[in-house]
């Protein structure tokens, strides 16, 4: 069945099995032309972002949007950085703990649900999974109340907590499918026969071979915490919130500074883009993990 996850190893399945053919028939020319055409279309917004961010004054206008800057300047980058810097740092304080904590929880849960199963494990897993699909508006009203009552400090600590909780389903899913496909049942059985308990088996045998799973959940959770706007706007503000709020304030003002907005959008996207370019292979694996279950 191919439905909600391929293991991170799915990356490898993306590699072509067939070497590209050397011949260039009309069909393959059309194929390349189309591929290049779509490449340009996909890159168009990025082009506008970059050129606008280096413009100043009268260069910035609707009609000259596609032109290169007549005078290149980094002034807008400076302005955007000044506006975004505090929240930029705060967002790291949000996304890094979320990525680490969620992954550890996911690993433990995934292990139990795939290799240390109990009666009704599949049903429980389905109940967990449902949490991944809910529109968060349906929990938002009491959520705000409950985090205040419990006494979690507002801003980043609250968001860390919330992202960890609502990240449980996806991380559990990724690890469950990772273990189910890469860790042989016999390995766990052998440990059990040797008298190793659950924790010992998990920490000594399972965790050391879980790196590929961790790479996927870390990237996934880092990206979703970094890019989140919904929880941020409900549970934080421009003074204590992450960068998406700050960027929207910068870009959504009454008469926004377009060049600074574009520079700000690039600054905001840089960390996730770097993660994506450096770890792209696994990132793709993560995407598959969020969607294709095998």
């Amino acid at each position: 069945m191919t439905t909600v996850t391929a293991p991170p190893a799915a990356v490898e399945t993306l590699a072509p099995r067939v070497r590209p053919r050397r011949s260039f028939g009309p069909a393959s020319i059309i194929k390349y032309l189309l591929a290049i055409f779509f490449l340009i279309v996909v890159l168009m917004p990025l082009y506008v972002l970059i050129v606008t961010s280096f413009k100043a004054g009268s260069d910035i206008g609707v009609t000259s949007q596609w032109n290169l800057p007549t005078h290149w300047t980094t002034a807008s980058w400076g302005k955007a950085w000044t506006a975004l810097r505090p929240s930029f740092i705060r967002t790291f304080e949000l996304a890094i703990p979320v990525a680490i904590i969620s992954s550890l929880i996911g690993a433990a849960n995934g292990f139990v649900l795939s290799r240390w199963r109990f009666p009704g494990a599949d049903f429980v897993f389905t109940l967990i999974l449902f949490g991944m699909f809910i529109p968060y508006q349906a929990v938002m009203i009491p959520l705000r109340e409950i985090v205040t009552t419990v006494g979690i400090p507002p801003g980043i600590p609250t968001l860390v907590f919330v992202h960890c909780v609502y990240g449980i389903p996806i991380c559990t899913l990724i690890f469950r499918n990772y273990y189910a496909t890469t860790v042989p049942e016999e390995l766990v059985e052998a440990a059990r026969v040797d008298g190793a308990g659950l924790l010992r088996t998990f920490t000594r045998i399972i965790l050391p071979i879980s790196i590929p799973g961790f790479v996927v959940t870390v990237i996934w959770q880092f990206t979703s915490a970094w890019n989140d706007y919904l929880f941020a706007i409900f549970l934080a503000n421009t003074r204590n919130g992450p960068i998406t709020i700050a960027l929207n304030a910068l870009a959504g003002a009454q008469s926004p500074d377009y060049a600074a907005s574009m520079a700000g959008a690039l600054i905001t996207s840089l960390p996730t883009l770097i993660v994506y370019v450096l770890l792209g292979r696994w990132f793709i694996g993560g995407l598959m993990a969020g969607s294709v279950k095998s």
Partner: protein
Amino acid sequence: MRRLRHWGPGLLLLSPSLILLAVFVYGLIAWTTKVSLSDEHNALGSKGFVGLENYQNLFTNDIQDRFTHSLKNLLIFTLVFLVGAMFFGLLWAFLLERGIRGEGFFRTVYLFPMAVSFIASGVVWRWLMNPLKGDDAGGLNAVFGGLHLDFLQSTWWTNPDWGMASMAMPAVWQLSGYVMALFLAGFRGIPQELREAAAMDGASTYRLYRNVIFPQLTPVALSALIILGHMSMKMFDLIMSISGPQWLTEVPAVYVWQTLLTSDYAKAAAISIVLLLLVAIVIVPYLIYTNRVEKSR
């Protein structure tokens, strides 16, 4: 007792997560449902239980049919988004599927918008979808003007009838690469022997894809639709970033936020629960089906 010793520790390790989800998913949904059945229309709190009145009001008694209008917007957005992302995703996967020089590069570029937040991409799409035409045109309209395709110029999301279709464009841009990755994995999961066997039988390329390959991709297509569909229902960031909260582009997720700002908790809760039901109608059967297929293996 021995069996409990066997699986007990596992359940124990899982229990913190189960408790958290029981409280923060199921408990809070129940809480929201309760609020939606009350008359908590301001910050002063609730005076009592009003049954389904808040729901009834949404459908029959909302100012200017605001709620049904937001549902209509959501429907248009979802249709265009799903069809668009599935079409380009499949097309791109098809282009790369048999191997193409520089495939890794193409794949990376097609997929990169996925790493960007809707808030950040909204900044540039707001510009690209500038409604001015003719000599004042900017963004996409300027491109169409430059290519002498003026008839393609549009007022984009500011169009009161079909604006939401344009609003789906950035979402298509962002998620098509994702669908491509899914389909690419699907294509490559098809055993080579199957293709060879079809070729041996003298099947044309068209018939090979039509009768052998595409049927194998049905499960991938289904999961892609589920992922995109539930994302679409929840769409909030993109619209907040491109148009901001306003009547023209309002969808239920934005409506909830706007209603909360007026402290009408009961109404906001009712809208959220309708949204949840819409998602659940699709997701619950899917989860049950997935669970069953897994068991039957």
